[in-house]
């Protein structure tokens, strides 16, 4: 026999496994509870006629229990699917719970409202793009930092940069660096060039197939191409630029050795034209260059 008061007495004063006591009050963990609070009127166990709304996969169902089925726990709760439309759902609730106590019906409608609201919010959120937080195992983090340190030591960056800059200087990429004593510097450059020209032949073969330090400097290519340009332009009869080419051709051999390697010019014309423009610009900028080179010669 179902005596709600007795049940409630026992549950409340002795033990209910669904009850959760928190600082702010007593809550009910029973999934069929409408409000979630542990109350005489909200307890699904202590009310033989009860109803709730539960959510399954985004669809709301109205669950009802009546005293007639109290002896069949398996078939205790009757379920009605509610449409996604809020107003229609309200109508259906009204229809099913027509003669039920008003308090319960009101609570159910409140619950329906809240659930529809949070369903809308969930859908909106899932559409938004959110950053996914990924974890990296600590072992990997440590390994990476160790390897980085070692790589840093192996890299010897400053030395490499200095070498690179000196190479560029020697190749004549810098037309107008003005922080040196010009005389001495010129002499140095001459010396370097002499030494290098002696070793040209040896270097050529090696340099052509160097792969380790593949460098992608456009600026370098700028100047380098000028030398290559010489042949190309002559081939294509670009008369206006030829004059300037002569100045720069005095060190063709050495530079070619270096140059041919990044840019084999079989797909030439486009590049030729492009470099052509650059060449003009360079020369216009520096009148000194031509003079200086002549002196050396």
């Amino acid at each position: 026999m179902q005596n709600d008061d007795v049940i409630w007495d026992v549950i409340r004063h002795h033990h209910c496994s669904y009850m959760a006591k928190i600082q702010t009050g007593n809550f009910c963990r029973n999934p069929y509870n409408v409000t979630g609070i542990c109350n005489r009127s909200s307890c699904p166990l202590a009310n033989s006629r009860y109803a709730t709304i539960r959510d399954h996969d985004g669809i709301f169902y109205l669950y009802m229990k009546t005293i007639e089925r109290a002896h069949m726990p398996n078939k205790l709760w009757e379920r009605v699917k509610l449409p996604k439309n809020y107003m229609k759902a309200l109508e259906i609730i009204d229809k099913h719970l027509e003669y039920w106590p008003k308090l319960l019906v009101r609570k159910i409608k409140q619950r329906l409202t809240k659930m529809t609201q949070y369903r809308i919010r969930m859908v909106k959120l899932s559409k938004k793009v959110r950053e996914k937080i990924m974890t990296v195992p600590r072992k990997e983090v440590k390994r990476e930092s160790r390897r980085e340190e070692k790589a840093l030591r192996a890299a010897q960056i400053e030395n490499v940069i200095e070498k690179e800059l000196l190479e560029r200087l020697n190749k004549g990429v810098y037309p107008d660096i003005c922080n040196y004593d010009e005389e001495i510097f010129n002499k140095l450059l001459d010396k370097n060039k002499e030494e290098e020209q002696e070793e040209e032949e040896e270097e050529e073969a090696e340099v052509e197939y160097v792969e380790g330090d593949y460098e992608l400097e456009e600026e370098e290519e700028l100047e380098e191409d000028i030398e290559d340009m010489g042949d190309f332009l002559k081939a294509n009869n670009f008369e206006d630029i030829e004059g300037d080419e002569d100045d720069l051709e005095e060190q063709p051999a050495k530079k070619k050795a270096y140059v041919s390697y990044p840019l084999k010019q079989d797909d030439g014309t486009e590049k030729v034209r492009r470099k052509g423009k650059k060449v003009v610009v360079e020369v216009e900028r520096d009148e000194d260059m031509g003079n200086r080179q002549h002196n050396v010669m």
Partner: protein
Amino acid sequence: MAKEKKRKAAEEAVDGDDYIEREDKKPKKQKLILASQIKNKEKRSAVYAKLKHEKRVEKRKKIKARDAASKQALELGEEPPEKMVPRTIENTRELDETVCRPDDEELFAGNDADEFSAVLKQQTAPKVLITTCRFNSSRGPAFIKELLSVIPNAQYYKRGTYELKKIVEYAKNKEFTSIIVVHTNRREPDALLLIGLPDGPTAHFRLSNLVLRKDIKNHGNPTSHEPELVLNNFTTRLGHRVGRMIQSLFPQVPNFRGRRVVTFHNQRDFIFFRHHRYVFEVKEKKEGLKDKKSKASQGKTEKKAIARLQECGPRFTLKLVSLQHGTFDTKGGEFEWVHKADMDTSRRRFFI
């Protein structure tokens, strides 16, 4: 019974030996006891110490012999014996078939047709948009300020809560050529996302070891001249592509008067970023008291041209995590290269 049989067999064998007259009777094997099998710790450690000492003595002998030989050769005027090349990780790197070769037609054709060719051929000037992740804090803004000074023609926009794809569209409309997104994690800049525009690849780098300008001793202040670029060691196809991507951030016509150089140095898949101002100087060596004007061109010169660097600007390292074809789209995009834990198994295998 069995024992008797064995004994007989042994005897027979011995007889057999004499009969066959084996010439080289095996000398008694001296059982080599490994040092690690000695159970007594003191004795064991003593044996080890002795071994080590022996090794060291041998090594020193070798070195001395080598030095003596090279000195002798020099004195005699002959060529010194070949210097031994130490084995390094770079020397023993696993052979990678995607290494760019200097005579690769396909490479140049690819270069012409790729997304950066417009910028690299100076048809468009690079314009960079820098932004951050949604929550930016602590070192992020400082780092971004410094980035702004390093990369010419860069602008910073606050992130707000815009989706990255929307930001990409917005940047396209305003004709930017690339976007840099600085991602912060735990109040430190953590990752760099480089998005090329209009439909350039997206490179995701992990940032580490960031040192801001103010934390560098004797740092210099960069000017606003266009910097020179130095890109080192980008050997493979992937590296080449990444290198070109980095190159497309900077203007292609450097202002040499500014003497600014920005370096991206790749070593074992770590890309080290440095920003220096340089100066060329004449350095005199102290040997002999020859005056400046003398020209000794044989052997050692006393005057050398050197370059001196002053570091300015931030210093950090990047590691490529993924390279995605097309603009930012993690779900639908096609990844050209993704770092997987599998790839770290060999210590001699690098991808860039």
